[in-house]
């Protein structure tokens, strides 16, 4: 970026001004210098689109970093997530009391003895933490993958004890392995008390098998519905899984294998004979399932759908699946292919509600505790951990396209700062630029939100129409910014 002397002086004045303004923002973001003091780089449209898939909506500093080091290096930086300092996000989460507790402790926190169970506190903290991480963590690709696996291994938090067990599942299954190996992820999920509770496996006993988890393990977690298993395979795998349960008393909420409930007969799954070996039987089947070519194809398809296009081309799916098989499901290696080779296959995707609220909030440097935003997600139909069926929230554009009104409501509520404990930093951002008039402001904001400024004609129509409707300059800027967030273009990423 070249700067004229005059611009340079303006910018210098601005950096000082914005530092002063930032003191109003929460302490941790001030000391870690997260608030942008520079203008936003313009990216080529493909890079901007990809950045909005790797993140929950490109912040100024993220787009500047990508412009600086290029997409490939940016992806490597994000994949090496443990090296990314996440101090400000961790600091914000340090007030949460339940995130690091084990099941027994969480049960204790929820159990109000004579008043029954508090089924709200633990899930609400988990929801709020998820939103805060998505908003403020610098490990954005990691958080995107956490979200992906949360859908893939979906658990409805209201089922039975899942209201506190999910916190453990989120930490020990999803977050622990989100960028690790797929094998470890499935293995951990299969031993996860929340999953076994959600899909009724704690009721799967030799005298009366329950095939719910066995079916979803093959249909939704590994092979996919057309992955080549039969009803007989489901029933046989259910037999292998008899006795996989959850402790009810000492070490409550921990995984337990109940030998006495296990069907000790010989089983046959996917053509392989499984000799009686207790808990090992289902573990052996899991080894088979994660190595199965159908699994590679199924996971490749879902990843390409999440990152690239609703109906990804077979070409890229096969390439990703091949890497999946070659690396035994090493998630980082697989993602490299999805994100780098996949760049050529990018198609617009309609934002899921979470992508919509998060991208608006991230791009405008919103400061929030997440509570009010969660309320909006509820109205849009994507409250976290609240999807009842095990297939998780849909990743198809079409699912989300019929319901504009809640998005419009969010856009206007956000810009008018009408959500509790939630404030945007629009003025702060504009101050960085030293724009001179409404037109320049709108160009800057549309480039921030959409990647490039909107057409001049539309911009002028917007100014005319809101001015005719009685808006003064401040109101016009607000209303137009809100309408850009509400606009068709911003619904896509």
């Amino acid at each position, binding site marked *: 970026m070249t700067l004229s002397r005059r611009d340079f002086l303006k910018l210098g004045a601005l950096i000082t001004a914005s530092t002063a303004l930032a003191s109003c923002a929460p302490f941790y973001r001030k000391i870690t210098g997260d608030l942008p003091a520079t203008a936003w780089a313009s990216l080529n449209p493909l890079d901007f689109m990809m950045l909005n898939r790797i993140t929950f909506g490109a912040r100024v500093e993220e787009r500047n970093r990508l412009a600086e080091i290029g997409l490939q290096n940016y992806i490597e930086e994000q994949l090496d997530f443990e090296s990314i300092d996440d101090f400000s996000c961790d600091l914000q989460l340090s007030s949460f009391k339940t995130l690091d507790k084990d099941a027994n402790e969480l049960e204790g926190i929820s159990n109000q003895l004579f008043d029954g169970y508090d089924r709200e506190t633990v899930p609400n903290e988990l929801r709020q933490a998820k939103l805060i991480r998505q908003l403020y963590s610098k490990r954005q690709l990691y958080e995107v993958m956490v979200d992906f696996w949360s859908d893939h291994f979906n658990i409805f938090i209201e089922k039975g004890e899942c209201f506190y067990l999910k916190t453990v599942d989120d930490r020990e299954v999803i977050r622990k392995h989100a960028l690790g190996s797929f094998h470890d992820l499935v293995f951990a999920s299969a031993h996860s008390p929340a999953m076994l509770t959600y899909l009724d496996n704690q009721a799967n006993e030799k005298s009366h098998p*329950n095939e719910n988890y066995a079916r979803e393990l093959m249909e939704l977690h590994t092979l996919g519905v057309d992955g080549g298993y039969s*009803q007989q395979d489901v029933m046989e795998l259910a037999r292998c899984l008899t006795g996989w349960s959850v402790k009810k008393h000492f070490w409550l909420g921990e995984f337990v294998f109940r030998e006495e409930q296990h069907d000790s007969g010989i089983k046959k799954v996917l053509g392989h004979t499984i000799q009686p070996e207790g808990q090992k039987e289902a573990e052996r089947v899991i080894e088979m399932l994660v190595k199965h070519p159908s699994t590679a194809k199924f996971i490749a398809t879902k990843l390409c759908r999440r990152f690239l296009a609703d109906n990804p081309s077979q070409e890229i799916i096969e390439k990703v699946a091949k890497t999946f098989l070659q690396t035994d499901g090493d998630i980082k290696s697989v993602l490299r292919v999805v994100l780098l080779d996949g760049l050529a296959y990018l198609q617009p995707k309609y934002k899921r509600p979470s992508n919509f609220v998060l991208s608006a909030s991230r791009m405008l440097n919103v400061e929030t505790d997440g509570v009010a935003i969660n309320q909006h997600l509820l109205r849009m*139909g994507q409250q976290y951990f609240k999807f009842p069926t095990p297939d998780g929230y849909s990743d198809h554009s079409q699912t989300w396209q019929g319901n504009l009104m809640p998005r419009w409501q969010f856009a206007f509520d956000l810009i008018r700062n009408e959500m509790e404990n939630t404030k945007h930093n629009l003025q702060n951002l504009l101050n960085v630029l030293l724009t001179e008039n409404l037109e320049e402001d709108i160009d800057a904001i549309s480039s921030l939100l959409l990647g490039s400024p909107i057409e001049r004609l539309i911009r002028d129509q917007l100014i005319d129409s809101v001015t005719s409707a009685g808006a003064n300059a401040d109101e016009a800027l607000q209303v137009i910014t809100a*309408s850009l967030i509400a606009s068709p273009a911003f619904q896509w990423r």
Partner: protein
Amino acid sequence: MLHTLPMINKTWMPRLAFAPQNTAPRGDTLMVVFLRGAADVLNMVVPHGEDAYYQLRPSLGIARPDDSRTKKEERAVDLDGFFGLHPNMYPLIDAWSDEQLAIIHACGAPDESRSHFKAMELMERGVEDERGPASGWIGRHLATLNTGNSSPLRAVGMGTSPQRSLSGSVPVSALRSIVDFHLGGDQGALAQMRAALNIVYQDDVMGQDTLSIMDTLEKLDPLTYQSKISYPDTEFGLALKQTAMLIKAEVGLEVSAIDLGGWDTHFAQGSVNGLMPNLMKDLADSLAAFHADMQDHMNQLTTVTMSEFGRRASENGSLGTDHGHGSMMMVLGGNVNGGKVHGEWPGLEDGQMIGPGDLAVTTDYRDVLSEILNKRLNNSATNEIFPEYQPVMRNVLK
């Protein structure tokens, strides 16, 4: 932008724009209720004349209507000497007696995946297998029947997103709640927002529709909806009430799609009380309220209920039921051959069931829907709506 709509002091509610000028090609308003999760229909419409039913369901079975060992209110309510309604379905007995409720048992799709997601998708698309159009059967119905109706509320999916069955070339709306449907702020702010939205959505049909719906619904409020009938205070009850409001307001509604979820009862589903009986109560109470509320409209109204498949005939060890096959449909309206359980009953004995012990399907769900389309919705394009399928008319409707 805030044009006021003409107020005609006709009934409790103004007659609004969008009432189609020419209603000739239009048939009934159709309400489609999808019971998601595979409802256990054997406990909804109980084959109490079948001994095998009681052998397969020692704990979950619903007692025979004449079983004197069981309290009367816990027995099935006899329909025809062989089938009976679950006691919580009793509110539907008036519609049954008035011959406005038809039941089609052992009804469903050929798909035997026993996967919720695959079965729902195929059923909502109205296709035999993955091949075939990606749009939904209702979407294709709307696309093949030109009713000259441009109302954004021509087809409404009650809920946060439109059902798959509605997808297609005709735009449809998702509507969670009529009162939710407005932007806050005072009149001045509202005018500015509308002006800006009108610009950014100038080329976008869905956005323009949403603006129109905003105008239309500004005048409707479920809280002040005056009806002698009270609907259950549930999400499903509200969806039916709002459908009733939209029909009475003559806003051009042709199809309303409504979901009632929670039927995937693998665990402790309950026989007379509990999880699944509560769902039946919600279903029956809400449908009965709708039926009573809409009596004056019954001749232009057809309601159908469906579910992706049925559940295993035998109960499992967790006092629940696993995924099965044959299901059941109900058709409610002024022009059904009601008071009758239609369809051939395949039986629950060994050798009569299919797969791991599941009710067989003797009536394809597309037969029932095709008959509704043909006889009640003036749409004979069933070969486009259900491609590669030759429907058989089952005489469920007049």
